[in-house]
């Protein structure tokens, strides 16, 4: 049993490495196709000779395959070179922004689950009622409304009228409120729908009927039996939403001037700052893959059927 679990974990780990390898390879070649960074970064009146010297210095005149090999070797050593713009190690530049993005991502996930799970439960329990209908309409809006638009609307209609909430930046603890709501709105809708559907499915199971027949309180039935068994689907969603949250952060950070990884990636792509783009994308892809790996492995603990090979 334990060896099966270990083999599963190792297999998924190897698959994760393959995914990361694929991602960094795509990023490497795509960033090279985005333009010549030296032309962008050199002084406007730099001579062709100066441009060539700079390219030589950054190793951009080497054959692409050689650059790729060097890039892979650097990754193994966790070296991403110097940021073209910041003239510091790319990992330092990325590391400085990581904290802000983790804060925002965590807050966004909190919003998503804090809104999505209760609404999903209520919608399932009162299926067909007003709460259910409004929840589903809300979920539709949450998934349909682009977060940059929602962010601007929140700034215009909330931040401008409530002094306590700033329009952007990261200058005070309350600065995170609006970006977190914006970021969490899309996954909240998904969480609500998943929770509702999982709860509906669970509530029709025989063991729920049995629990009720035993005379358990409705509260105990819902939270001890139904919700717990519905969480498997919701946890699956958590892994997916980490990716959504990170990609959403790219836009939300720009709208709210949140100095995180998303904003950095945008700027680095525009400036063709390869080292920072590569370090950022590698870091986020590793993070997403890691979370999904944890989710996969956690199934085996949450659902005994997976552990026992029943499903």
């Amino acid at each position, binding site marked *: 049993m334990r060896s099966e679990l270990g083999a599963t974990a190792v297999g998924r780990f190897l698959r994760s490495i393959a995914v990361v390898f694929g991602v960094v390879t795509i990023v490497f070649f795509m960033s090279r196709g985005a333009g010549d960074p030296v032309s962008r970064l050199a002084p406007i009146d*730099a001579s062709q000779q100066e441009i060539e010297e700079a390219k030589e*210095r950054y190793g951009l005149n080497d054959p692409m395959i050689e650059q790729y090999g060097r890039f892979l070797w650097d990754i193994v050593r966790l070296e991403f070179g110097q940021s073209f713009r*910041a*003239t510091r190690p790319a990992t330092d530049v990325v590391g400085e922004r990581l904290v802000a993005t983790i804060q925002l991502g965590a807050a966004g996930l909190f919003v998503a689950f804090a809104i999505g799970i209760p609404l999903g439960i209520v919608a399932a329990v009162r299926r067909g009622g007003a709460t259910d209908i409004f929840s589903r309409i809300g979920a539709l809006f949450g998934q349909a409304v682009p977060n940059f638009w929602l962010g601007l609307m929140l700034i215009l209609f909330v931040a401008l009228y409530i002094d306590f909430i700033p329009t952007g930046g990261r200058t005070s603890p309350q600065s995170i409120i609006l970006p977190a709501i914006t970021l969490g709105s899309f996954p909240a809708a998904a969480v609500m729908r998943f929770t509702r559907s999982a709860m509906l499915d669970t509530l029709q199971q025989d063991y729920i009927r049995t629990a009720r027949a035993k005379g358990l309180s409705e509260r105990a039935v819902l939270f001890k039996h139904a919700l717990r068994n519905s969480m498997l689907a919701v946890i699956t969603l958590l892994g997916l939403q980490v990716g959504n949250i990170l990609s959403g952060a790219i836009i939300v950070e720009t709208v709210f001037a949140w100095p995180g990884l998303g904003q950095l990636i945008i700027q680095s792509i525009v400036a063709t700052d390869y080292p920072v783009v590569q370090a950022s994308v590698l870091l986020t892809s590793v993070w997403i893959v890691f979370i999904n790996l944890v989710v996969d492995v956690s199934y085996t603990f949450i659902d005994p059927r997976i552990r026992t090979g029943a499903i």
Partner: protein
Amino acid sequence: MLRASARAGVGAAGLALVGCGDDDDDDQQQAMAQAQQQDQDQQQAMQDQDQQQAMQQQAQQQQAMQQQDDQAEQQAMQQEQQEQSAAEAQAQQEEEQAVADDNIDYNATAIGAYGAFPQILDQGSALARGGQSASNNYHFGAVFPLDPFGSAVPGGLAEWEFVGAEALIVRMNEGRTFHNGDPVTAEDIKFTIDRLTGKAEYNPEYNSAWTGELSWTGDNELLDENTLRIEQGAPSVDAANSLALGGFPVFPKNYLEEVGDDGYGQFPVATGSFKFVEWSPDEYIKSVRNDDYFNDREYAYAPRLPYLAGFEARLIPEIGARVSALEAGEVDVANSIPPDLAVPLGETGDYNVFYHPAQRGLHIKLPMTIEEDPYNPGQPNPWRDRRVRIAANLAVDVDAITQNIMTGRENYTYTLSSGQFGFPEELPEQRWGYDPEEAKRLLAEAGYEDGVETDLIYLSGLYTNDQLFMEAIAEMLREVGFIVNLIPEDISKFLGEARNKELVAPYLFPQSAGFTSIGSMAISVDSAATYEHRVEVLSDERAEVDRLIAAAKTEFDTEKRRELLSDLVRIHYLEASWIFLFELVQTHVAASRLHWDPYFLQPPSVELWNLKSMKT
């Protein structure tokens, strides 16, 4: 005392005259003598008494006089103190009145929102360009101040003297210090020039943003601790002006060698009117007033001692969020706001809209140095025909574009701006106006009745409303017969292609800002300039333009230089070498609680040294 002695002498002489007689008379004489003696004793006693009284009187008088003197002195002091207090009170009252009148708050800190931030704060680095000018150039101060016409003026870190066309002598002024308190020395100026021209020993590979501006420099030598001689490797009348350009940085040698390039990029110490305090990349940059700044608030040129005690720059990339932050009172100034958002804000009365002419003439560079038509191989390049170029200029209604798409305050560009040194004042009378019928006629006359096929390239998203006005221009050109394929391009791709001389189509480009008249012409018009089309063949007029630029660079006679520049602009414009468009105007919005005397100079941003206060 003298009076008592005299009286005693007179009495003795009188008694001697009375006592002349016989022995019978001895008793009488003795009695008389005794009586005289008694009289004398009495007189003496009286005299002594008088003397004592006189002395006492004198002492009393002296005491009284002393008291009077003391009293007078005390009164004088009191009066002086009272006068001084009154003067101080009056001064304070006047100052309070001034504050009340002008709303000057010397302790105020302003917050400005910007759309872009630099990644490093080293003004000398090419890597810092793009955002740098809008965020932290106020930390830096040039060697000499600059007047609004682009000429160096006295009163900076140093004074200068030309040694003909051979060298520039720089003599340091006393009392100039860096933000860390170290004096600014001639050695620092030498180090600065060496660093910016790639000659500094500690890092010859430094990626300088100022090599072009300092291309005139040759070797330099410290004559003494206060004097630097800079050889003019390539003689230039702009030698001193180049050291006065807005944002030109002067570096502290000792500090920079201690912290290195990377350290300096994170914590700059310079000579500007604001001192750097701290920053968080892509978040904020905090600065405080440099109270030791050498040019006071009344100095004729910028920068000056700021009124603001502090300034915080915040990055808010999204324009709508920048405006919202202004409306919420979180920031005091929002930079680079498009006119369609800025104007309604100004109309509320709560905000002031400031239009900053950036002296960057937008134009479309025409491939007139390429011999063959790239779209019709084997045919001559139509842009080499002056009639085609004039037709393109006549086809574009620049005023309609500025009025309807831009702010309406953009000036038409003639290469140099009106007011810039060397601008030929009569040139506007010869402006290529909007005349589509004449444009069609000229095209037909040139043999292009069926139109001129061309791509038209522009950098997408670089300027406010650029897509809109480029579509308008393309449509106007199509109206008269040009067959235009409008191509938006990414800046990295575009710059690479332009540098490599791969572009064969007309393309939108800005006149370079931050240069003197000659520098601006050299970098924008000279056929050898970096972003010109490749040169296969020069017309006589283009060759003349290049010759005039070279001549103006080394003409030290001001009037002759002015004439050379005027000729240059005249030829360039009348040859219709570009499609001439308009000078960019940047729009900033500030809360009306800010007191601000606009005084624009380089760079294109709100001039913080003129912000005086916030009315709360």
